[in-house]
């Protein structure tokens, strides 16, 4: 049953991907302005502009341009950036590792700290501990990223000189950016963990385990946590898009390359092939995450499988 559900969902990816590619293409071409103005320079003549537009096929009707793009992609050619003048695949391949590095580590940080805090707040008997933990959880989500980044730099890099101010050299340069992004993600994970644990705690089988005389700790780690992890994993899988593209502000402040920064720069220059490529990558990652999340949910809840196949 699970296999059939998964198969069905994977099959759904195809029409959805195509629909998304159309949406992305439309969005990109809805943007006012065009890349040619970023190419021409003082000294060139007005005719050069028309020549360039023709060279890049920008005077063709939109659907012709779309099919050119999609057609090339099916042959493995992601196109060449108009302003940045490099194959799109190269540009993405150069920037992706940095985003993955940062994203994966931040994800790990949010998960570990979030699950810990969420578990504490769900299981503690002390009201004060609960309030303190709640305070920690709130901190991350109330301050804008660039603000936190700047404060981190000022304190840890300039004042204490423990870490470099910016750049991507060595593991030291990862610490502050990971903390900045990670702290923001803690709140969500903590809250989901908390409610998942509280829900599970009320189940009948837990009362049975208590009656059997098992110590609370064993119940927690052996039975409650595994059950609680599933909704947590579901939520986390859905945030894959964030891992790849959500670090824009942090990348900007810390001077690190990344998919988000590439997208923003290309967006500013209206470099269509790059923007399309990046958005498509992000969209595919997001759909993958949603797929994983749905499958995980289906694995947990048979009703979901039945309702949707």
């Amino acid at each position, binding site marked *: 049953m699970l296999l059939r559900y998964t198969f069905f969902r994977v099959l759904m990816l195809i029409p959805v991907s195509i629909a998304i590619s159309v949406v992305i293409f439309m969005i990109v071409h809805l943007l*006012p302005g065009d890349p040619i103005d970023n190419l021409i320079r003082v000294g060139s*003549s007005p005719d050069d502009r028309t020549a360039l537009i023709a060279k890049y096929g920008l005077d063709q009707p939109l659907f012709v341009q779309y099919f050119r793009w999609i057609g090339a992609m099916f042959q493995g050619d992601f196109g060449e950036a108009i302003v940045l003048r490099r194959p799109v695949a190269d540009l993405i391949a150069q920037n992706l590792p940095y985003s993955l590095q940062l994203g994966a580590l931040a994800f790990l940080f949010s998960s570990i700290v979030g699950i810990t805090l969420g578990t504490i707040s769900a299981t503690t008997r002390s009201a004060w501990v609960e309030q303190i933990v709640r305070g920690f959880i709130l901190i991350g989500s109330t301050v804008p990223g660039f603000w936190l980044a700047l404060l981190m730099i000022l304190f840890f890099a*300039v004042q204490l000189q423990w870490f470099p*101010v910016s*750049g991507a050299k060595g593991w030291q340069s990862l610490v502050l950016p990971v903390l900045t992004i990670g702290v923001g993600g803690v709140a969500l994970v903590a809250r989901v963990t908390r409610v998942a644990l509280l829900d599970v705690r009320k189940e009948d089988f837990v009362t049975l385990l208590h009656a059997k005389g098992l110590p609370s700790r064993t119940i927690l780690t052996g039975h409650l946590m595994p059950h609680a992890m599933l909704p947590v994993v579901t939520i986390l899988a859905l945030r894959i898009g964030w891992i790849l593209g959500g670090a824009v502000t942090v990348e900007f402040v810390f001077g690190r390359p990344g998919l988000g920064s590439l997208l923003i720069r290309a967006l*500013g220059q209206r470099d269509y092939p790059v923007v399309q490529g990046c958005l498509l990558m992000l969209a595919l990652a997001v759909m993958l995450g949603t797929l994983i999340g749905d499958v995980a949910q289906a694995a947990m809840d048979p009703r979901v499988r039945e309702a949707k196949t």
Partner: protein
Amino acid sequence: MGYAIKSKLLSGTALIAAGFISTAAWSQEATIAFASGELGATSYNPVTSSNLNSATSLIYDRLVEQDADQSYHPHLATSWEEAADGMSWTFHLKDGVTFHDGTAFNAQSVADWIPDFAETENAYLVGAVASVEVIDDLTVKFVMSRPEPNFLYNLSSSFMGVPGAAAYDSLGENFGVTDAVGTGPFKLESFAIGLETVLVRNDDYAWASDLSENQGAAHLERVTFREIPDQSTAFLELKTGGLDVLLGVPTDFLQILKAESNINVIQMPGTGINYMPINVTAAPFDDIKVREATALAINQEAIVSSIYNGVGAPAHNFLISSLPEADVSPELNVSFDVEKANALLDEAGWVKSDGPVRMKDGEALSVKLFTQNGTEFTALAQVIQAQLADIGMEAVITVFDSSTIRDEYKANRHQLAVRGYDWNNSDILDWFFSGERLGYPNVSMWKDEEGQRLNDVAMKDSKNSMERVANFKAYHEYVLSQHLFVPIYEPTTNIAYNAERVNVPDPVRGTRFRAQTVLDMTVVK
């Protein structure tokens, strides 16, 4: 052990220790951060690239170099002659120059290089060149299809750094990406887009231009160029020693930098102007009196002392002051004169009302002021808004990003705009005011018969550089008389460096921070 032997051993050990310590502590390396306007370059191929950064000039040499006073200095070309009719140029090349891959630089290298420009976006740089003739190994002749008095200027541009022909052909698309071969004082070691470029010294370098004191190989062994988009972060890196040199420091940081004891700031004459173009097709600006009033309402001096903390100079016309064409008749220069501005508006029929805004025929004097995002321009727009309010004109600001704003210009939705340009040649007048470029870059939307005639004469009919200067000056003066824009500010280029780490020659030679300066840089012992 005998005293003599012991002392010899000790002194020997001391020498070795000293040698070890000094070489370890004194590594000839420097880290330089790019200015925010030159971030994101994706290739070091000068022929095909649409944007290049400062590191390019270290990898490739040019035939000639331009100094800040507009004079041209020999570099790969030792001397040159222009034919009297302007239809050919002959260059004599320096002997003994080699590319990074060992191949020789000679007339054939030039002949191989020029045709590479065909079909590229940079083709206009050699648009007037019909063919290149190799006269002998060290003499090359450019046969022109039309006179190009601006030829030396083009040759001194970063985009005309000379690439090694053999490598250029064999590397193809990867030239400037995975490897780059020029004759410059540094070789490309690694290039991570959006992050950093590492250059290592070319030990064979012996052909610097006379803009450098150092005529041999560079003192620095290794230079790392970093890309840091956020200005505050760049400043903090400089402060904590993560950077040695920061190019293009915004003026609001200058005060804090000067307060740091180990940081020095060099100010180079700038190569651009900040100004406010006026859309002459949009009422009320179709009335020249209103345009002139707007121009006179802007207090350049106050802007310089407040927003720019006294750094840089007020601009009174369209060109940077080092250009001879900027030397126009004094009465055409634009300066603050609020009484005359008010009088002109009265004359034009815009009268003071009970409210803060002037009225005419029931309409309020309210205009749109567009600008690009970026703290400098938004700050400038806000000050201008306040200064215009002083003459009873209400300016409503909208901030756009650079691509969207061009669309707005082309759709003719603007009235006033605050922007800047970075160019040190008078053909910028053609760029911004030619009737054939309406919308963008001709933000003033100006199309005028006399103006176009003067434009064409300056751009196409100038036979030599003296004529060119005279023609462009005439064009410039006409443009000024029509009040198509308001000049605001002539920025300086600010360079900050850590004086405890590196020495940077001051004043900086040339028009921008380029190879000639890096050649003279040393690490502080």
